[in-house]
């Protein structure tokens, strides 16, 4: 799990069901993603804070939902480059 900080709490984790899954992990310092099956991880430049739950759309790995401790749900359609809501 190269690049992913160790000994830090992981508040949420999700991946898509394909054999080459995209993974997301929410750590205290932000949201991290891996696109090579967990070999390497990169921190996303933008992400909601306080993520407590994640889900990747099963047939569109660019669409990710992030729920927060404040009861909010954020959506990205580009794998986490930008985040927004429908309103």
């Amino acid at each position: 799990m190269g690049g992913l900080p160790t000994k830090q709490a992981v508040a949420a984790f999700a991946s898509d069901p394909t054999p080459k899954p995209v993974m997301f992990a929410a750590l205290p310092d932000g949201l991290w993603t891996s696109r090579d099956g967990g070999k390497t991880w990169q921190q996303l430049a933008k992400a909601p804070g306080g993520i407590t739950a994640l889900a990747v759309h099963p047939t569109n790995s660019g669409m990710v939902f992030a729920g927060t401790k404040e009861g909010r749900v954020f959506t990205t359609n580009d794998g986490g480059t930008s985040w927004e809501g429908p309103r």
Partner: protein
Amino acid sequence: MRSDRVRRTGRVPLRCLAATLVFAGLLQGIGAAGSLAAGAAEGAATAAITALAVNSQDGTLWIGTGRGLLRSADQARTVTSVALPTKVPATEITAVAVEFRSPWSVYAAAAGEGMFKSEDGGKSWAAVNSGLADPDIRGLALSPKDGRLHAHVRGNGLFVSKDGARSWKRAAGMSGGLASGPAGTISALASVNMSNGMGGIFLYAATDQGLARSPD
């Protein structure tokens, strides 16, 4: 946090709290279906999002919260409360999963109340806890390959079901200490389909001590 660059989808008001809040004099016009757009009860009727899962066919978003289960057909613009047959209404949802190939099969774990399954997209639910040591489930993973389920039962380690949660037995033979429960408190459990390396399904556990994984 970088939320200054992030537009908010919306808080999730909970319909199941509506009656309580009315009596408490806190509710100020919550939407009948728990509409996010009508979230006038912000601050009072919100709870942490505890779990998320997506229907692979119609995109329905299942939202577990600290005070019950919600669903949304429009990416959380609006939400509807889903009543589970729990003893305590609006129980904390600790895990949600949707079958990849049969997305009308939905699983939801309620804190201290066990696992519930719907086979009709959430219209009806049944408890599915046969073989589980305790109803306090803190993580649920659903294999995208064969539908195998793993549930983490607090204080009792991992349990596995190969028959759609009709029966459970203790998981064994997993490396990394996952069978007995990974170190720390679990916040999420996931089955990941890997093609690299030896391939196969790996079980990932998000914990307060880091990310753990083990071949399934």
